[in-house]
């Protein structure tokens, strides 16, 4: 499974991270696991929205084997 990062998260994690697709994991579990292994971005991850297939996904959402996950930090245009 691929995890894509944007904004300040990409600075810390790179644009894309490939992780082994094991047992079904939820968005929240992946978020917690990343925060535990990268404490420097834990706060940014907490504030980020998760996105699967171009739609926002809450932390309870189970990630399918074909799904890629994206983390979007707070956005700002204008």
């Amino acid at each position, binding site marked *: 499974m691929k995890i894509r990062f*944007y*904004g*300040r998260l*990409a600075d810390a994690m790179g644009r894309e991270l490939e992780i082994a697709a094991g047992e079904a994991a939820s968005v929240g579990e992946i978020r917690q696991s990343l925060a535990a292994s990268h404490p420097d971005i834990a706060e940014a991850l907490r504030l980020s929205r998760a*996105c699967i297939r*171009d739609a926002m996904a809450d932390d309870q959402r189970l990630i399918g084997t074909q799904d890629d996950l*994206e983390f*979007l*930090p*707070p*956005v*700002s*245009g*204008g």
Partner: protein
Amino acid sequence: MSVVAHLEHEALDPQLELAELTEQARGDGAIVTFIGLARPESREGDAVDALVLEHHPTLTRQSLEDIAVACAQRFDVSQVRVVHRCGTVPAGEPIVFAGAASLHRRAAFDAADYLMDRLKTEAVFWKREVGEAGSQWIEPTEADLADRDRWG
């Protein structure tokens, strides 16, 4: 009714956007536009060379369309036009053009105000200033969020 929401990868020309909006607004009585520029100085007073706007391959364009369409539905306007830069914007150059046309001025003023309040807080971009102080991510301020919340 016409809604334009465009993600611009190259230089944004406000004169051209205004000319097209004016052309489409025939029969209306008012056009209000806003042009956002890349500031040459950060909030901390450091010189800024450029603003870099990172975007999402699909969600950014969708967010521009959603905001423009919501604006057209909410206000009594005939035209809504949003053009937003992505990529590297040198200081002093335009980042965004937001305009609306209506029969009477109030709707166009409100529509342009609404467009910018939502673009500042909901358009899918990640902005960073690059300059004297290195690279700094810019996120919505409490004031930006309060401005957006005025619209309910």
